[in-house]
Each structure stands twice: as structure tokens, then as C-alpha cells.
């Protein structure tokens, strides 16, 4: 995760410029990384409205506390940590959301060019299975498996030991395995619909 940018200032320079009073620097930084921040929040929380709240809270916090950035981690790691913490904080404070209706499929999985129906259905099952995990395991898997972080990088984002990330990922995958078994061979006569998933998703 390099901060370097071929065109313009790198992330550290942008953050320093923001702290020094450049009115456009932080906006440039946000524009550069907002899709990834959004993806992490959406996958971690599973609900677009919550994800929007978390990213907004995180970016305002980052805007205000940029002066405290010490440069011991990449700016992206710092930003991602703030977003993940905002997600965790939101989940812990907001118990109502679990009873809310699930968002439209399109909100979670916007159509991709050439997107096959089957792969889209697969993605929905995977996404819904992911949401059955405890938030800490989900956050670790989102970083490591969905976004390709190394365990050490994820540990830096989650502010916990690498062993904790490993255990969260391992146990999360173990919980997902039976839920996703149908995707391996859905035509198998012994196929059992995934458990622990919303009824309107599990049988698709």
C-alpha cells in the first residue's frame, strides 16, 4: 500500500498540506480513496445507510485529527483504521439496524459489466453469509480476504496483534464454510440450503 501517486502529491504530502491549511488537499485525498473506504464500510456493515454514516463520521474525524497523524503507518492504513473503528462503533451503538429490512440487492451489489446472473446470485449468498459473522471476524475477513490485506497490514488497521487477525479470519471462514457449501456443488442431491441466513436470500 504505497502512498505514492504518479500524478500530484502523495498521500502524506496531501495530509501535511491539509494540516498546513490547504483547503483542497483533504478533498483530493478523499477523492483518491473514497471508493475503497466505502467498500470496506459497506462489506463490514452490510447496509448502505450505515456505511454512509460510518464513512462520513470517519472522514470528519480524520479531517479534524489529521494533525495527530504521526506517519508511522501509511495514510491509507490510518484512514482505513478510522473507517473500521467507525464501523465497529456504529454496530455497538446501533442495535436497531438488525431488525430493519435488508437493503435492495442493487445497493449491496451494483451490477458489473458482463455480470452473469449466477455469479451475481453467488455474490448475494456470500455477502449475506458474511453478515452472519460477529463484527470483529467480519472486519478481519473484509480486510484480508476481500481486499487483499496481509495479516500484518490488517493487524495495523484493526490495531490488534497479527495472531488475533489470524484467529478471527480462521474462525470466520470456518463459520462461513457450511453456509457457503451449496455454492460448491448446488446440484448435489445432498445439498442443504444455508442456515443462519435471511430466508429471502438463502434459497436463491
Amino acid at each position: 500500500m504505497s502512498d505514492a501517486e504518479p500524478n500530484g502529491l502523495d498521500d502524506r504530502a496531501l495530509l501535511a498540506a491539509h494540516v498546513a491549511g490547504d483547503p483542497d488537499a483533504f478533498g483530493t485525498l478523499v477523492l483518491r480513496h473514497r471508493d475503497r473506504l466505502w467498500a470496506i464500510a459497506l462489506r463490514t456493515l452490510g447496509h448502505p445507510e450505515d456505511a454512509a454514516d460510518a464513512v462520513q463520521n470517519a472522514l470528519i474525524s480524520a479531517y479534524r485529527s489529521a494533525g495527530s497523524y504521526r506517519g508511522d503507518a501509511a495514510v491509507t492504513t490510518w484512514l482505513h483504521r478510522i473507517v473500521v473503528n467507525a464501523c465497529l462503533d456504529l454496530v455497538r451503538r446501533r442495535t436497531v439496524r438488525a431488525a430493519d429490512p435488508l437493503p435492495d440487492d442493487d445497493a449491496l451489489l451494483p451490477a458489473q459489466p458482463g455480470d452473469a446472473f449466477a455469479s451475481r446470485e453467488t455474490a448475494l449468498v456470500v455477502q449475506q453469509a458474511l453478515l452472519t459473522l460477529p463484527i470483529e471476524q467480519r472486519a478481519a475477513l473484509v480486510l484480508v480476504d476481500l481486499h487483499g490485506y496481509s495479516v500484518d497490514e490488517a493487524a495495523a488497521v484493526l490495531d490488534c496483534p497479527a495472531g488475533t487477525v489470524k484467529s478471527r479470519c480462521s474462525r470466520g471462514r470456518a463459520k462461513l464454510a457450511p453456509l457457503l457449501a451449496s455454492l460448491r456443488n448446488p446440484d448435489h442431491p445432498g445439498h442443504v440450503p444455508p442456515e443462519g441466513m435471511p430466508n429471502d436470500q438463502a434459497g436463491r
Partner: protein
Amino acid sequence: MSDPRNGDLDGDGLVHDLLAGLPEPTMPSEVAARIDAALAVEAATRDAGGTLATAAATVTPITSTGSTGLGARLRGHWLMSAAAVVAVLALGSAVVVGALSGRSPSSSSAASGAAATASRAPGAETTRLSASGRGYTKANLGPEVLTLVAATSTSPASPATNDGTVSTLAAPGRSLIEDRTRLAACLAKVEEGGPATAPVAVDAGSFEGQPAVVVVLVGSATSYDVFVVTPACSSADATLLYYASVRH
């Protein structure tokens, strides 16, 4: 131990591949506009109020994963999790409890009967609690854990035929093994909101030369999750010294 729905899965690999295959969404324009507007308000505040440093002084820090500001609701959840693990431990290790307390095997038969109807992790028929003083290392953890678990499965569920490790508690982690409430709180903390499952084995000894307690949980149909914690492990301090997934 085996779940037929796991049969077609190749461990972590398939789950990893399925997760990695999820398309990465882009931020919707309305969300981007909303955030831009919120940041514009911040910028206006900054312009009107002076330096960034003074603005930062008013920020309420976002709660970090390991901080203590989780609030009453989370504490309530935490206590429930710990209580659930206490219940599982009480059921899963009923026979060993009898050994620890010096009661006769028959005195725990009612609890054993209850255990037979309780929902448990596959393979966690009983929890083996011991303080063997074994010197675990990163290199020998796998074989030692398999030996520990094998001893559990081959020992009849009776304190009289236990191999004696419980009655010769001597390792520094003994206090954790004996304090069922603290052990349950430690396990709940290690599990981090996961299901309350009885460990396959808990053994006090050392890890890489320092006092430690090894906790073996069912990980999957083909592996154990092994957590190495400090003897001081509790709900307040669940320092994880090491974690490994051990195939069996």
C-alpha cells in the same frame, strides 16, 4: 465432528476465494455528495475558527477495538457471553469438576446427564482441564495439542481414570484453570462474540518459556483452533500470546 455440509469444501481456500470474488462497490454519487457537504461544513468551521489543532481538541475520539468505552449495552452483552460460556463449561467439564472439587464421580452425574442433552461443539464431548506444565513452543504446539486432545479422547470420562494431571496442578496457570468464572470470561473474550462452545481442552503450562494457558477449540471438521493466553487472562485482560490452527 463432521458436518456433511463441509464435505465439499476445501478448508479456508474456497471461502477465501468466494469472499475475494465479491465485486468491489463504488461509492454512490449521493453518498459522495453528502460527505462532500459534511466536509465543506468542517472546512467552513475551520476557516471561521482558526487552526486545525483547536478543532481537533473538541473531537470525541472514535472508540478503538480494544478500548473500554463500549457502554452499558456492550457490557451487558459481554456478561451474557461469559455466562453462556460458564454454562457450557459447567456442562462440558462436569466430570473434571468433580475431580477438582474432590467430589465423587456420582455427584456430578446429574450435570453429566444434562450435558448429554446440551448443544455443544462437535468433538467437545468433555473439556479436559489440566495443568501439565508442558513446555509449549511455536514448533511443538501442533504435536503437543494433538497429544493433549488424544489423551482426552482415550481417557474414560471418569476422574478415577484420568491421567492425573488435574490432581497435580502445579503450573502458573493453575489459578485460571481453577477459577471457572474467570476462565469462562477469558474464553468469551478470546471468542469475541462467537458462539459459546466448550473447549476440547485447556492446559496450563508454558509457551516459549513464559507461563501460559493453552485453549483448544474445535475450529472446523479438520482442525482445532488453539489459543495461547496468559495465566492472568480475564474479561479485562485477554492477551493472546499466540494462535494457531492445528490440523488433525
